[in-house]
């Protein structure tokens, strides 16, 4: 019954949307996990020496690239099938 109601095109679109969401969401979780350790260490270093603030912040954002990858994948999915 249900299969008959959803066209193939709509099904593919839906899957692409779910995939896009997963790409950003999971990548975000991964980046967050990576940043947690670096962030903790950076705060420790900053507590020792205030001068480390700039470098510490910088190190903390390095894993953010992963989210960007996820985002690009989601864009491509949406462009191709959205």
């Amino acid at each position: 019954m249900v299969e008959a109601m959803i066209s193939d095109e709509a099904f593919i679109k839906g899957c692409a949307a779910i995939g896009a969401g997963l790409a950003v969401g999971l990548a975000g979780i991964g980046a967050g996990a990576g940043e947690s350790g670096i962030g903790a260490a950076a705060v420790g270093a900053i507590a020792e020496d205030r001068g480390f603030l700039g470098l510490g912040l910088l190190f903390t954002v390095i894993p953010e690239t992963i989210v960007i990858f996820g985002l690009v994948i989601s864009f491509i999915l949406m462009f191709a099938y959205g």
Partner: protein
Amino acid sequence: MLKPEKMVKVAIIGAKEQLGIASEILHKMNLLHIEPISETDYFKLGTPMEKASQASKNLLQLRSYISYLKLDPTKISLKRKFKREEIEEKLGKKLAEYHKEIGNRLDELKRINDSLKSIDSEISAIEPLKVLEIPPMLLKGYKTLRCFVGFVKSDPMEEIKKIATDFDFVIKKFEDQFVIAIFVRSEQENEVYRVLQGFGYKEIPVPEVEYELRISELKKMKEEFLERKKKIEVEIEDLKLKESELILAIEEYLSSEVDKAELPLKTLVSKQTFVIFGYVPANSFESFQKKLNEVGIVVEKLNFEEHELPPTKLKNPKYAKNFEILSKTYAIPKYKEIDPTTIMAIFFPLFFGLMLGDMGYGLLIFAVSLYLKMIFKTEGWQKLLNIGLACGVSSIFFGFLYGEFFGPFIVPGSKNPGDVHFIGDFLASLYTFNHGHPLFDRVEEFGVKALLFIVLMIGMFKMLWGFSMGFYNVYVEHGIKEAILEKGCWIFGILGLICLIFGFSYNLGIFTSPPPTGFGEILPKNLFVYGNTVQEARAVPLPIPGLVDGWQAGLNYFYLATLPLILIWFVIFLKAEIPKMGIFGAIMAVELLTWFGQIISYARLLAIGLSSVYIAFVVNYLSLKIGLEPGMAILPLAIVIMLIGHFGNFLLGILDPGLQSLRLHYVEFFTKFFEGGGREYTPFGKVKKFIEEEGGE
């Protein structure tokens, strides 16, 4: 620009008696970067001049006063500069005066603080004794009895009963401990004491007079001391107001005197002569030489050898100088290296604006930076805030392109600009020349697609640029062959990647789909259109060739160009790596994937911006819905939401674009060419703030 200042290595030679004059002149010119040297059989390191010990003693004392008075030279705006002679003349008298006026007062303050502390501790010691409710005269002065008065952690009576026969005690709870008074015979004193120690006994001294009497006595003393303290503090504050500039000027004078007097420590001295080695900026060499020749000191130009590393003096235009704080955080370039500060000075604000791109936030950043510039006068802050100004301007510019003022006024799915933005209709009317559309609508799907491609193009461009500069750096240091093997091959690799991305984008229809109506009407129609129709591009089921419908589906010229480029790269790469690491060197080719990732990483230029656009949009939409009819019409709540939302987004809008822009430089750009490890040029001498030098310079 792009290269540090050219340096000349010099040797300064003169008669030993002239060392004093030489130190005066060198210090005043503030040009010579002195090199550390080692002794030889004939030349030994000199000893400090006689005036050094006295001057450094005075300096030490003066600095202790300065730290007590909390004088900060950066916070003082100077009324006038002091003449050198004026300070030399006043020096002895003033130092004696400061010793008397400030030193003695500070000593007295210290004594008063000590007394206050002992009074406080005595008062706090009497409090627990009051709990015992035994007058002090009964707690001391026995001949055959020993009285223990003090704190214990828990009740020791059971233990004491076991060893002592004839005793009396009082025990009371005080805060989380017990106060006890135990009277025992003198013979049993030691044993009881041992037991008490096991309970953490801490004795309390018993005062001579009644508790209340003693407390009031102490309080009176305390008041007197406090009054005296206040008076001294006022006196010191007066002195500080009157003398601070002179004190700092004398400090400056003395510290340069010490520097001068200690010059011989960096000088080689023989029986009759002295020699100093160092570096001077090439463009000041002539005047440097002339000045010293005038007094009969010889300056020789030396050639520096391959392994020597002259100090780095960054040479940048005035605007780019602000960005030195950012590039120096990464590393100081070597003498022969390219100094990327100027490149950063252009691209950092550009990236910032590209990401934030909002007229409202840009104006705020500009205004806040201007305001803070008036408060924080130190050099570091000024430079940082100048960067803020540049970023603000760039945000305003891109904000105009994107048509955003505290959020976008056109969002897909909404017909009326007034629905999504509080001044949406006004903004739309501002863009009537473009049919009410922003010049580049990055919220619209086509805009996202186009911007994604544009930022990736920027990424590819900067990647190639970085490798080209790396190529240059290696070429200068090790020659053309090394440069091709180490950096040149990657240029081919990156070109291959670029073709790959182009092919992919072509199949996605980025070149082929024409902009929708209204989008960038003033731009030429065919700017983004390289193909024929959207259908042509969309006919490809997947952007990766060969996945479905046979190998030729989705193949385009870009993909075809990729193959030879990657091959060229791989051959050169193997030639470079195999001699170094054997056959395993081939595995290092995986590095190409890193560069691919780094090009994609530039997509953050789009992503960070989009996230802040949508936060602003949500804040505007929410507050419009809450604040206006038809809806809930709770205006105050709407205003609060709007203020808090935009404030949060503003903070994020400074932090994130700033950090990401910095990161794109440090990680994606600098790693291609910038090694760093240079020494900073620190000339002998000091820039005078409080003292006027005769004859300028």
